[in-house]
């Protein structure tokens, strides 16, 4: 008869989840490289093109980080797009009509995010309501509130401090190029990108090195087991939603820094982009598996698709949606195949 130890060694295998992440990263590189080859003449090869993807998607990146945390617990938060719209509207109206201090406004937005997240988290964690329903209610609430604040398209006034932040260029000392007139174009990023990257790094560390982060994984892996091992499942779930809404509010500020306006229909479907980015990045909807590095590349892939379609110029922008759909299918099928293979091995 075989001894159990031997059996143990046979079971060692490449971690399927790591492989998924590598596929995501590889796919991004391939996609971007293809873009560079096809659209070399249209500036795709310049560093600035890549940075523009970051600038455009800084808000989405923050939201995707939060979404990943929620999805790790096996939940979902579809209120984020609407919350961003509400944040942007609040910022725009607050500055242009109420004349509020932008710093105060930003703090207000963050506080609202936390309170909103606490409410949603309480419903999901302690009242055990389906996260989809809770955050759907949250979504309707935020969209509604956005319209209550104003139904107009409101712009951030150009004399405000916020305007200065939005236009601040943080230059990068390499990767510049001379344009046709021979002027050096120095690549740059915006404040939003710095914020979003900071969020990414912090959440990565939180997920990996803190009790809270590991609790998210444990709850998503097996709620019952997590409870049996003495974790406070309800509290952990609630905290996940608070984090999501908080990061979403940071994302809202980044988003507003980019658009400089608030409107009722802003950021519609952004929650779906965030979910798609997480899934493409290897986060399982069933919870317990995933990390923000994957989500980062998910966001980049999302951005690259848009960028490719935009650079082409002739394609209908809806082709970006179709490409995302195809990718999602690809990744979901891949995840299933991996899960099946794992079961087969057992």
């Amino acid at each position, binding site marked *: 008869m075989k001894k159990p130890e031997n059996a143990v060694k046979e079971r060692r295998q490449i971690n399927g989840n790591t492989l998924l992440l590598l596929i995501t990263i590889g796919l991004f590189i391939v996609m971007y490289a293809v873009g560079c080859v096809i659209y070399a003449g249209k500036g795709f090869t310049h560093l600035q093109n890549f940075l523009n993807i970051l600038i455009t998607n800084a808000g989405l990146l923050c939201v995707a980080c939060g979404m990943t945390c929620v999805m790790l617990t096996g939940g979902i938060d579809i209120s984020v797009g609407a919350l961003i719209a509400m944040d942007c509207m609040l910022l725009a109206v607050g500055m242009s009509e109420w004349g509020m201090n932008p710093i105060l406004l930003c703090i207000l937005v963050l506080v609202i995010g936390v309170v909103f997240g606490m409410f949603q988290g309480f419903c999901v964690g302690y009242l055990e309501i389906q996260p989809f329903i809770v955050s759907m209610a949250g979504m309707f609430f935020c969209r509604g509130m956005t319209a209550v604040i104003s139904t107009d398209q409101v712009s951030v006034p150009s004399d405000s401090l916020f305007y200065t932040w939005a236009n601040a260029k943080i230059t990068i000392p390499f990767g510049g190029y001379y344009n046709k007139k021979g002027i050096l174009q120095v690549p740059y990023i915006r404040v939003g990108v710095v914020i979003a990257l900071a969020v990414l790094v912090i959440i990565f560390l939180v997920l*990996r*090195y803190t009790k809270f982060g590991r609790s998210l994984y444990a709850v998503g*892996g097996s709620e*019952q087991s997590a409870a049996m*091992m*003495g974790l406070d499942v309800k509290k952990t779930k609630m905290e996940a939603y608070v984090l999501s809404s908080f990061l979403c509010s940071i994302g809202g500020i980044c988003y507003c820094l980019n658009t400089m306006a608030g409107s009722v229909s802003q950021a519609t479907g952004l929650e779906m982009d965030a979910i798609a980015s997480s899934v493409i990045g290897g986060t399982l909807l069933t919870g317990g598996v995933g990390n923000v590095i994957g989500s980062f590349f998910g966001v980049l892939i999302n951005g690259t698709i848009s960028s490719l379609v935009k650079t082409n110029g002739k394609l209908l922008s809806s082709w970006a949606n179709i490409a995302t759909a195809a990718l999602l299918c690809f990744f979901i099928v891949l995840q299933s195949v991996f899960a099946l293979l794992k079961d087969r091995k057992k």
Partner: protein
Amino acid sequence: MKDNVVLTMRGICMTFPGVKALQDVDLTLYKGEIHALMGENGAGKSTLIKCLTGINNFEAGEIRLDGIDGPIRNHSTLDAQKKGISTVYQEVNLCPNLSVAENLYIGREPLTKFHTIDRKAMVEGAKRIMADLDFDIDVTQNLENYSLALQQMIAIARAVDMDCKVLILDEPTSSLDDNEVEKLFGLMRRLRDEGVSIVFVTHFLEQVYAVCDRITVLRNGQLVGEYPIAELPRVKLVAAMMGKDFDDLADIKPEGGADLSNAEMMIDAKGLSHKGTIKPFDLEIRKGEVVGLTGLLGSGRSELARAIYGADKAQTGTLKVKGQEVKINAPIDAMNLGMGLLPDDRKAEGIIADLSVRENIILALQAKRGMGHLLSRAEQEKLADEYIETLQIKTASKETLIKQLSGGNQQKVILARWLATDPDFLILDEPTRGIDVGTKTEIQKLVIQLAQEGKSIMFISSEIEEMLRTCNRLAVLRDGAKIGELDGELTQEQVMAAIAGGGDSE
């Protein structure tokens, strides 16, 4: 509190709606002993454990723990853990998506001075814990990469490392093979010698005698008694559990048995196989025959049955049912040919927990008839009443949710489900696993009775003794292949020798 006594439970009472689950039950646990908690299903073992670990809120009685003044009452498993009472259940309660090290340390991770998790210290600690228990495994791998047995050991390791004084093992051996059970016992003995008191809940009598020091027996929610193991031989234990003298099990099989070699052929499989689970096999089963499948866990017993039944579609070979060659693509085809399969995983593949007993019973018959021919309520109730009566299913009513029944009674309901379809050929995969001795005997008798009525039965069980009692013939499997058949008067030793085979056994 007396010296050496770690835990006393006195006069525990607990009522569930309509049932007195525990009446005045005592339990005394000494330091460094393995204490068996025995009783049939529904005797109150789990309820008592849950009172101790804070899942159930008992109504009367008191629990005292060494080192704590006054009676204690736990309000959650966490509460109990903090007092040094840990439980490891049959289903492993760890997170499959986390590494072994994390599973050992979650909730109490070593921290660095920045209050972040010290992963290095965690991995080293985990290595040390596992090495202490003589397990040489990679603790950074995810838990899901390890066998169920190892996962269970890891769960125990976690409990032990959390300074537990009282370790409760609730049916830990149900899903382990002999080798793994031996390993677990080694661990239990070692912990006992280190002063841990272990409460061991199991259905396997042999295992009780292999490791336990004392036995507490419960019956119908009441304490029968507490005995040192030497004073309670097996027969007396069974008698204590059942409350009556054990009828001689060996007698349930009719003497000699009828000669079935000329009976009508029911199942005739030639070269059937399913890639990756079962290699091509031939198998004949005649009308009125009980054929047993024997082999180690994972030898392909269930897989063979699933290939015949179409749960795993057979990829090669031919199957004749009553002489007719048939093609089975899915279980519904098999059902229409008069087959039924009672799956081994009762919880996942058998019961529909949130449906009533009646609904669970009519399920297969309804599926066979199709949605166009709904069974009327009256028909359903008649069926349910009939089977509750004939199988003596212990349930408050036919509308009781099946999840509220004890394991043995759930199994009877599933049996009823298949009997309701009036099958000619019934596959029973571990029908007696995890159920009490009394119900086991009833099910075994039922199997023989069904065979006498002219049905053919395929019987799968890990207990050779049980197979010898019920089966006319045994098919032996090893490593996913059928390697032979045994019939005539057999002894356990002969069967085990056949299972182990020559040459490659140690």
